[in-house]
């Protein structure tokens, strides 16, 4: 097919052609970046978190008398265990995605003193006996804590427990000892605290992202403590998912009755996770909406413009048909025209998309967009263009040759 006439026809309609090219280019740029951002956000929302997310509830008890912590905790744990349907109970200082960050730093070098550059920031989870079962941690290597390790852990007046055993996540193990097994290695903090890694578990997320990348989001350390610490407020109650809501209500009810002076609050872990990602989720939906409306607007724009061109050229089409052009020729003429316009648009659009990504990387903590987003975006707009032009083009191909004779 000869495309020269198409070019000369487009040159006659320079302004509308430019406009539609710009529209497609902008749509391509926005689409590539928006889809990339949606992908990143879905990746965040789906970050793996190897605990029993469907069965856990968290009951937080605050404002109890620290001098009686030992008795209060023992009583609370016993009360929670007695609730029918409860499978395991433990006490923790904070829970994943709760936004209540307990961050600390460890180094593999025993010689450093203050928090210096060799320290790797990590979330510190303190758990009491049975915490592995209450959370539903997945052991990858090694073992969980023994009873004597739990008993040896107390905080005293520090953030860090006494005791010398730690269970760490796979991603933290890989960060501290890349290429080596972490089992039996020692984590140091100052000259006072050191913990031997006895077990490695599948990745558990931190209470909050704390400014790190996706990998450091699951840098977590579990340390065993005895159930005596007033600094620990989060009771982990695990049950079957069907029992969860009932168990949570009963837990809040029983604990508030036990101690009216305390502030008792409870949430299912699903709620905690949903709340953490609420912003991310609404942004993802907003991006999806923008993409959908934008594609619709672009498609309708192409439909409208092609329809007008078809209407404008009815006579020419009639003449072409009269002198021997088949319907297929007419159809292909409009399809080719649209293809040329779309090609110009996506060529410009891919450059724009790349530029926008560079700008966003500089100003909005965006990652680099993988190259394949560009051709995918281009292909999408090509398809949208072809799809939109199909209707008007078919109508054009149905113009009977007799039209040519009528108005001459």
């Amino acid at each position, binding site marked *: 097919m000869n495309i020269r006439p198409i070019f000369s026809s487009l040159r006659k309609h320079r302004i509308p052609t430019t406009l539609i090219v710009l529209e497609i280019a902008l749509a391509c740029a926005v689409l590539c970046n928006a889809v990339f951002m949606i992908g990143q956000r879905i990746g965040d929302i789906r970050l793996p978190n190897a605990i029993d997310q469907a069965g856990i509830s968290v009951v937080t008890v605050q404002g109890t008398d620290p001098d009686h912590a030992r008795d209060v905790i023992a009583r609370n744990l016993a009360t929670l265990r007695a609730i029918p349907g409860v499978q395991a109970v433990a006490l923790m200082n904070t829970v994943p995605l709760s936004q209540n960050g307990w961050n600390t730093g460890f180094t593999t070098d025993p010689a450093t003193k*203050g928090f210096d550059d060799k320290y790797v920031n990590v979330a510190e989870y303190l758990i009491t006996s049975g915490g592995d079962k209450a959370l539903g941690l997945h052991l990858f290597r090694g073992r969980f804590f023994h009873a004597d390790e739990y008993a040896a852990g107390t905080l005293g007046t520090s953030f860090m427990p006494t005791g010398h055993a730690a269970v760490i996540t796979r991603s933290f193990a890989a960060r501290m000892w890349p290429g080596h097994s972490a089992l039996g290695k020692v984590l140091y903090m100052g000259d006072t605290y050191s913990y031997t890694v006895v077990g490695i578990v599948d990745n558990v997320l931190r209470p909050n992202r704390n400014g790190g990348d996706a990998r450091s989001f699951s840098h977590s350390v579990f340390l065993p403590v005895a159930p005596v610490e007033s600094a620990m407020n989060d009771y982990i109650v695990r049950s079957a998912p069907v029992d969860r809501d009932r168990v949570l209500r009963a837990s809040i009810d029983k604990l508030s009755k036990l101690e009216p002076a305390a502030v008792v609050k409870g949430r299912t872990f699903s709620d905690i996770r949903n709340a953490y990602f609420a912003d991310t989720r609404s942004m993802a939906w907003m991006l999806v909406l923008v993409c959908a409306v934008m594609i619709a607007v672009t498609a*309708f724009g192409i439909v*409208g413009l092609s329809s007008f061109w078809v209407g404008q050229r009815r006579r020419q089409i009639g003449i072409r048909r009269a002198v021997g052009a088949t319907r297929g020729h007419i159809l292909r003429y409009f399809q080719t025209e649209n293809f040329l316009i779309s090609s110009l648009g996506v060529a410009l659009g891919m450059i724009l998309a790349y530029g926008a990504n560079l700008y966003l990387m500089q100003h909005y903590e965006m990652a680099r967009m993988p190259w394949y987003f560009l051709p995918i975006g281009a292909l999408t707009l090509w398809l949208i263009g072809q799809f939109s032009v199909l209707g008007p083009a078919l109508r054009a191909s149905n113009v009977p040759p007799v039209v040519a004779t009528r108005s001459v």
Partner: protein
Amino acid sequence: MFAYYLQLGLRSLRRNSVLTALMVLAIAVGIGAAMTTLTVMHLLSGDPLPGRSAHIFYPQVDATPAGYTGTPPHPMDMLDYRSAVDLWRAHHADRQALVADSPVKLQAPESKGPPRMLTMLSTTAGFFPMFKVPFQYGSAWTPADDEGRARVAVISSYLNNRLFGGADSVGHMLLLRNTAVRIVGVLAPWRPSPQFYDVRGGRYAQGNTASFYSRTEDVFTPFFSSLQINDGHFQQFSCWAMPKKPGHLVDSPCAWVGLWVQLDTPAKIHAYRRFIANYARHQKALGRFANTDTRMMSLMQWLAFNHVVPSNVKLQAWLAFAFLAICLFNTVGLLLAKFLRRAGEIGVRRALGASRGAVFSQCLTEAGLIGLVGGLGGLLLTLLGLWIVRHQDTPYADLVHLDLSMLVVTFVLALLVSLLAGTLPALRASRIAPALQLKTL
């Protein structure tokens, strides 16, 4: 004449009602999206202390202890206790206030409600006049209460409504952890956007800064009193080494206190910069500081430094404007095609004596109609968009509303968009040569 053009325009628009609806909808959606995000941006990036923010400063010194081997950011976003109190006690500014947050358990013995955990702001008497905090009942505590470690508190209007049903609660007692404090003042509703005096650490937030727009704290207590009331529950911004006892941060190697000062003249600003520089040099000479870096930003500089506007909000604004541009290109292209299709008709009118100006204004009337209706639709969609934002689970949701200035901007934008969309096609249509068109009729 205009009425006649209007009639012609309406007739022409009715002839292609689906297309007209599409053009109107495109403009409406574009304006709705752009104005919703722009309004949110406008509300979040405003000046929390209009007219006063230029006099409010956040002095910082690098309190890294001598002998520390790491490389922390110089200086940290907050001060250590000793530097903060030294600078505050010097009273070199027109007004000054220390700030520190901590979670506290609160009970109101007179109301039977359950105890609650909330955030307490520990500050000094200068806070209230410096930030022109409005009072509904009572007043702030006095500087003497600061020094005397008085057991007094100021509560927010939100908490007063919850505990006392909005009645004047001055003189009533509250239980903060285990200490009884007397209410001396109740704030009128006060909702600075952002909650500027607690802004810090924005550099590390990766754009997730929505929490800077939370409500203010519900309890305000004198700084030194609260150190006793809530000992063991203070939270550090960051530490150079482990504090001996967590939550007890007085004289710990931690940054956890903010200092705000009011400096009314350029001379005083200059003098205060010199003052903190001298202080840092002096502390280094004494062997307490490792460095002598200082920094003092004005309130708005500090907010910009912390990138207070959440990056999601800024991204949405970019997206919305790209979207508006797409809608605009779309409408211009369609109008142009539409007018040019009527070239024959325009040719006849020109041949019968219509001037270029007449054709131009006729086409512009038609385009303006689309823009106007689209703009009105855009306004409605903006209201809908803001309603949706208000029902989102974000700290700034309750701040979102369409104020007068943004309403005006919406109308101006709608007008601008419709003119932009109309001018080019109308101009092109008015330049149609009549002879050429008549020949082809």
